[in-house]
Every structure is written in C-alpha cells, then in structure tokens.
C-alpha cells in the first residue's frame, strides 16, 4: 500500500495524465526521494483514491444485489425445480443472509464514497454526468437498492416501509429519466444517435426494475407506467444500437464487457411484464427468448472481448449482473413452463451466474490493486474543457 501511496503522490500534484483508462501499475519503479513527501500527503492521497470512485464501480453492487435476489428466488417454495430447490434449501439461510448483508454493505460503502466524491470533486461529477457512458451509471445505485429491497428477508412487499422505500428509490430514477431521455431528442450535443452505446440500456433497466418491484407490491398503475417508459425507450435504443452509426462507436475496448447489457434489458422486461400480468405469457416468453438469443450471439463471439480480458478491471464486473438477470428470467420461465428443458436451462444459467460472480469476487480479492481507481477518468475532461462544463 505504501508503494501505491508513493505512486499516487507522484501523480497527485501534477496535471493528471490525460488518459481514459487506468494506468499500468508500476509499483516497483517509484522514487524513494519522495518518501518524506509521501508521509505528509498520505492522507490526501488516500482521499484521492477514495474520490476517484466513479459511478462505474456500482457494477459491483449491481452484481451482488442481483445475486442476492437470485438466491432468494431459487430458495422460494414456489420454484418448481425438483433438483434445484432441494439443493438450494440445503444451503443454510445463514449463507443467504450473509450474502445479502455483504451486498448491502458494499452498496452503502460505494454510495458513501460517491457522496464524498460529490463533495470533494464536484467538477468530476459534473463531467461524469455529461459523459455518454458515465451518465448511465447514475441509475445503478437506485437499481441496486431496488433489487436489495426485493431480496430483503426482513420486509414483506405489503409492508408500509417497503412502499416508502420503493418511492424513495424510484423517484430519482424518474428524475434521471426526464433529464436523460429528454436530452436524447432535444439537446444538440447529446442526441441519441451521438451518445447511444450499450450502457444506455441501464436507463431502461432502471425503469423496468422499478416496474417489477411496484407490480409485486400491488401498485399496478405505477408499474405499468414505468414499464411503458422503459419499453418504449428500449425499442428506440435497440434499433439505434443495432444500426451502429459511426458516432456511436465511442466505446473503448476495455469496456466491451458492457455488451452483456444487451442480455440484461430484455430479461428485465420479461420479469417486469411477468409480475404485471401475473403469468409468464407469450410476450414474456418472447422477451426471454430474445435475451437468450443475444446471449448465444455474444458468447459465440469471444474475439469481441479479447482486448478487455487482458487485464483485470472493474469493467469485468459487468459480466455478472446480466447473467444473473437472465438466470432469474429462466427461473420464472421454468416455473411456468414445466418440463425438462426449461429446468435444465434454469440450472445451467443459475450455476453460470453464481460461478461468474464468485470468480469475480475472488479476482477482486486477489488483484485489489488492479481494481482500485488510479486515475479519475473524468478529470481529463475538466482539463480539456476548462471551466466550461
């Protein structure tokens, strides 16, 4: 850690390195002459690490919260997976509560760090809001909160506190909707054709998750309202992303794992419609099948992800959440359509999602250095634009 501090010290005072990607770690070649300075600025550099946590780190919380939701769904008695529920029930409920707590703690920690960043580096936050990738991740904490709420073992959906919390988490989503969707067709620099990229689907997912939870609470009208918001913009976004105008080619190679969000959006829509219409009807099935097809399509193109897989980064966490949502949708599908193949599908997808999440947790524990933010990717925008942001 001391080496890291020294390195951060070198980069802290000077003009930040104008790079969008995390710099290569060079923990061995630091100068020893700065050791005295290092001790003085240790606190400020610690703080600087903390304030570099950009919104992309909420991928971790998305992944963990959705995992908690998956485990809860699998353990439900209504799940008709003859083999699976018995396996899941052997896992003590203690483990599930542990996972839920870890997810909650991670989420709270990330929110706290982001709040600190808001206070200390407000300019960076503004730059992030303006960035075509960063702005979408502002939905991520609210999505995580909603999923955590759904997965909570302590509250029932018809509880008053539950409903208050839902309102508290959905209102920011609607506010962000108005801002970002409005920009899509009104503001010149941020037309949809210019800013559309796979992470824009997070905005859609936010609406759909809100609708899903609302329907489970029994608030059908709010659910339908948010669902229609989500699905309409999903239609527009889907077409735009498939067309792939030249302007939308601005995703760096390190962020290719976010292509998995193509899988997440229709699965979430399928879940939402399932809870609104109380049965897994044809529309839900079609959305689920679409996401299955997109999953097969992405998995059969490993070359697309080769460059991003060279180094561990927080972008790798983008693999977990879509797989978990797909597994959730498969669970609902298997409940409705009983048979061998749906159950096998559910089993395979659930196992895959659990394995991927566990692997990511192990990687994070082993390579913590790689995942810590060494640069603020949004500072360069500050420098480049001066004070015009």
């Amino acid at each position, binding site marked *: 850690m001391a080496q890291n501090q020294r390195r951060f010290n070198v980069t802290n005072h000077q003009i930040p390195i104008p790079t969008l990607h995390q710099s290569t770690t060079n923990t061995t070649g630091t100068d020893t002459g700065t050791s005295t300075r290092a001790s003085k600025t240790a606190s400020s550099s610690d703080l600087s690490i903390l304030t570099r946590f950009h919104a992309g780190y909420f991928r971790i919380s998305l992944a963990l919260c959705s995992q908690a939701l998956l485990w809860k769904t699998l353990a439900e008695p209504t799940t008709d997976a003859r083999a699976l529920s018995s396996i899941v029930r052997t896992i003590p409920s203690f483990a599930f509560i542990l996972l839920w707590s870890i997810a909650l703690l991670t989420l709270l920690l990330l929110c706290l760090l982001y709040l600190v960043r808001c206070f200390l580096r407000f300019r960076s936050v503004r730059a992030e809001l303006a960035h075509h990738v960063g702005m979408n991740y502002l939905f991520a904490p609210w999505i995580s909160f909603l999923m955590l709420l759904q997965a909570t073992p302590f509250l029932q959906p018809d509880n008053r506190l539950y409903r208050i919390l839902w309102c508290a988490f959905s209102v920011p989503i609607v506010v962000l909707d108005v801002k970002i969707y409005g920009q899509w067709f009104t503001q010149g620099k941020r037309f949809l054709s210019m800013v559309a990229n796979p992470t824009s689907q997070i905005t859609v997912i936010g609406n759909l998750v809100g609708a899903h939870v609302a329907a489970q609470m029994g608030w059908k009208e709010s659910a339908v309202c948010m669902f229609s918001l989500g699905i309409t913009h999903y239609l527009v976004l889907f077409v735009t992303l498939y*067309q792939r*105008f030249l302007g939308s080619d601005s995703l760096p190679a390190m962020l290719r794992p976010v292509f998995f969000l193509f899988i997440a959006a229709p699965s979430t829509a399928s879940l939402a419609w399932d809870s609104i219409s109380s049965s897994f009807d044809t529309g839900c099935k079609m959305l689920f099948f679409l996401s299955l097809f997109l999953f097969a399509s992405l998995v059969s193109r490993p070359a697309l992800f080769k460059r991003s897989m060279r180094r561990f980064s927080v972008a790798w966490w983008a693999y977990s959440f879509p797989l978990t949502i797909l597994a959730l949708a498969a669970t609902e599908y298997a409940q409705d359509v009983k048979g061998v193949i749906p159950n096998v599908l559910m089993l395979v997808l659930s196992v895959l999602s659990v394995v991927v999440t566990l692997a990511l947790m192990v990687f994070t524990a082993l390579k913590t250095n790689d995942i810590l933010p060494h640069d603020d990717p949004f500072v360069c925008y500050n420098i480049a634009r001066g004070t015009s942001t």
Partner: protein
Amino acid sequence: MEQTELQVEIPSVLKQTSCQNIKGFDCVDYGNGNNPNPLENAISDKESYGESIAGSKITKLELQEVVIISLPASPSGLHIGQTKLVLHSEKCENTDQNDTKNPYPQLAKQKKFHSQPILVRENGDRKVVHSEAIRDHRFDPFKTWSGRLERQISNLRGKATQEPDIEAGASERDEIEEAPGVDRYFDALEGPELDTLRATEVSVLPEDEKWPFLLRFPVNAFGICLGVSSQAILWKTLNTSPAMSFLHISPMPNLILWWAALALILFVSFVYLLKIVFYFEAVKREYHHPVRVNFFFAPWIACMFMALAVPPSIAVNLRPFIWYILMTPIFILELKIYGQWMSGGQRRLSKVANPSNHLSIVGNFVGALLGANMGLKEGPIFFFAVGLAHYIVLFVTLYQRLPTNAALPKELHPVFFLFVAAPSVACMAWAKIQGDFDYAARIPYFIALFLYMSLAVRVNFFTGIRFSLAWWAYTFPMTGASIATIKYTMAVTNVVTRSLSVCLSAISTFTVSTLLVYTIVHAFVLRDLFPNDISIAITRKKPKFSKMLSHFRSSSADSKDFDSSISKNSEI
C-alpha cells in the same frame, strides 16, 4: 515483315507464356489470313471448362504473331503513336525481341509495361497433345485449394510435373484466397443487387469469355426453389381451406407443383454442392457479398416451404425432428449475421442494410409457422421473437434510407417486393401460434397489404430492368401475401375478402408463369440465363491506374463513360 533486332530483356513471365488465347486481345489477325490463330476456333466454341480441346489443332502450333502493347510509365505518354509494337515470336523459348517499325528509337530504353498476357502455362513438352497439358489455369485461384487438388491428380497420373508458380500466378492466387472486405464490394459493384461492375473496376477473371458453368451458378438460383415451392403452398391452401371451397380447386396443381419444386431443389442443391466442392473460393466470395449472403438462407426456407406444402396424399403429420434439422443451419447463420450487425465494424447494419436482408428475417417466421403447424410450442415462439426484434430494426433502418447506406437502389426494382414477405409470413405464424387470427395477427397482415398495394400501383416503374435469376426470389412475397389473405378470409369471410383472395392468387400465379416463360426463353433460346458472375471476381484492392487503362483499352467503353466513372470514383 521486316524485323529489326533489338535486344531488350523481356520479363520472364513472357518467356514462358503463350498469349494467343483471347481473340482480339493479344493477337492480331493481319487480315490476309496468313497467320490465323489456330487456337481461335478452338477457344471460341469452348462451352464448358474441361472439354478436351481438339488435339489436332494444337499440334499445328506454328509461328504465332502475337502483339504485346507496352505503355510508357507516365500518363503523359498516352499517345498511341509512341507505343511500340513488339512482336513476340513463338518459335521457341528463346527470347527474340523483334521490332518492326521503330520510328522512335529513343524510346527503346524506356521502361516498358507490358500488358499482362493471359497466362497459360504450358508443360515443358509442347508436343504433348493431352488436354491436361494446356489446362486452363485462369480459374485455378477460384477452385477449392486453388486448384492444387487437380494438379495433384494430374501428377498422380504421371504427367510431367508442372513448373512452380510463376510470380504473377502466385500473386493472383493470393489475390483470390482472401475475400475482399465489404467496402470493396460496395466500391466495385453497383446496381440494386450489387452485381454490375463499375466501369473503373477490373475483373480478376476474363470478362469477355464464358466462365466455367459452376463459376457462373450463383446462390440466387435457390430463388427459383423459393418461388415454385411457395406456389405449391398457395395451391394447397386454395384446395384445403373451406372459405375458398367455392372455387373447387382440385389437389392436382398442388401435387404437380410439389414434385416440380422437389426436383428443382434437388437439382439446384446438387449443382451448388458441386460448386462448393470444386470452387470453394468462389463460394467464399459469395458469402462475403453483402447481398448474396442473404441467399444462403434460401435453401432452408425452400425446404420449409416444401414441408408446409406437402400434399395431404403424401403425408399429413410431419415429424418434429425435421424442424430441428432445418432450423439449425438458419440459427447458426443468424448468429453470425445478426452478431455482425450488433458488434459493428465493417458490416454494421447502417452500412450494409439492403432489402435482401429480409430473407434472413423471413427464415425465422417461416420456421415459426412450420413449428406451430407441427404442434411445437416453445421453439416457434423463440424464433418468432428473434425475427420480430430484428425485423423491427431492419424495417426502421430501411425506411430511414440512411445516407450512409449505399446499397439501396434509387430506382424501384423487384427486390422491393421483399418488404412484403416478412409481415405476411409473420401474421400467419402468429395466427398459428395463438390458434386464431386475432388482432395481433391482423396488424402485420394489414401492413403487408399496404406495402403490396404501394408497390403494385407503381408497377410501371418496374419495366425496363434487366432480367436476372434473382427475380424468382421476389415472387414468393406475392404468393405469401395471397396465402395470408386466404387465411384472413378464413377468419373474416365475406365477398370483399374472398374476391381479394382470388385476385391476389391470380396475380401471383400469373407472375410466376410469366417468369417461367422468361426463364425458359433465357435458358434455351438466348442462352444467357447464367451470365458471368462478375460480383465474385472483383479485385481485393483498387486496381492500379495502369491496369485500369489496359482494361479500358481492351473493352470498348465509351470515353465519356470512363471519364465520368473516374471522376465518380475519385469522389468516393
């Protein structure tokens, strides 16, 4: 003829090649009949590759007068008068540079760019009369494994081993082995089916000679199977649907058409299989063509049409495993093509979208319809969902007519009828999945009807377009619309719908019969049903200016046309 000696080294390429195969290209008939090209007669009526050339004519290889035009390096040297006529004596391997009139001796030392002769490598022993000795190597790069298989076979037969590749031949082979990028297809070709070579482009294969039949057999030929098998479905529906029983159609047309379609499918598949075996490189190039790649779905769709059209006297209930077998290749092809759209790069949809992409979408809906007919539940919904999602994307893209999209024809062309295909099949598939023709099925039906009407009233704009084999593929949307109308009539039976069904069925049958007549005329009378398939013979890189010039000179292109294409090309 006076011959002045001039010792100039000519490239080794010319030492070993004879270039008198193309009439009017390298050879000059002096008009007095003294030195006719003995090979002219042999080559001109060579219909298909591999025919053994009459040996007797070849042995009479005597002194050949061959003209090689050499152009100076700089474009300023475009004066015809400055070019030298170099006569190459074909007596023996010795290089003999003979100059007839040489009014410009100062040009003798200039670097010469000899027009490349068409390479025909001969075996060492010219006296061998066997056909393998003068095998046409021009089409080797397009063959499977670049003709190495055939060479090995001839080696096994004990012939003298051939020379190692001459450099020009090797470079041609490299040229072919890697398929061009999609940009090259758009740059080099034009037309609504991207099958016409632009004036500034050069073909890798000789354009004025008939290529081997297999090379000329495009994958569009499966369009005929689509057209005929969809007709079979139409007549089966007319026969079996109770709402149309007032017509008293017998089951005979269905039976006849079904057997005809079966024969056609077997024949076309067999020929194309031969093409894959012998000319795999050509197939690879067709696969990379942005319009032709969609026709690779056609065989499977045609087989599914056959399954849908099977006469009741032959089979009533088909086994589900047929569905799985037919949908697997479609699924794999889809993964590849839709994945290319999604991940962008060279083949992003905004660049390559063209109406033929509908063929890739229709496969999903036809599969859903067939699966629902067979009683499957989840599989049809799967493919319906995938087809619907991608259809929406394609529909919006094509309707937008993006400026980045170069492939859409500006004028109307029968390919636009493919717009009608997807909604009409989708409505039938949905009706079958749901069990009845509900509102969700009627919406796509009315969209299909609207698109049909808007194209039908513009039918006068379709005249004057060159007939091509792909037109067969555009008849099946019409037939599909008629079948959808009959299904709609079954749900809503009244005079209007019945007359609409009769009307549309009549139009589609009439169109198919007309097309049949056209095809027979072109096949047997005009004999140009399978013209040279230029679109697979484009060069990998833009041709160099000198090559363009030589191409221009050899073809009798209008200079104005040439100038305009040069200027057009330079803008791109």
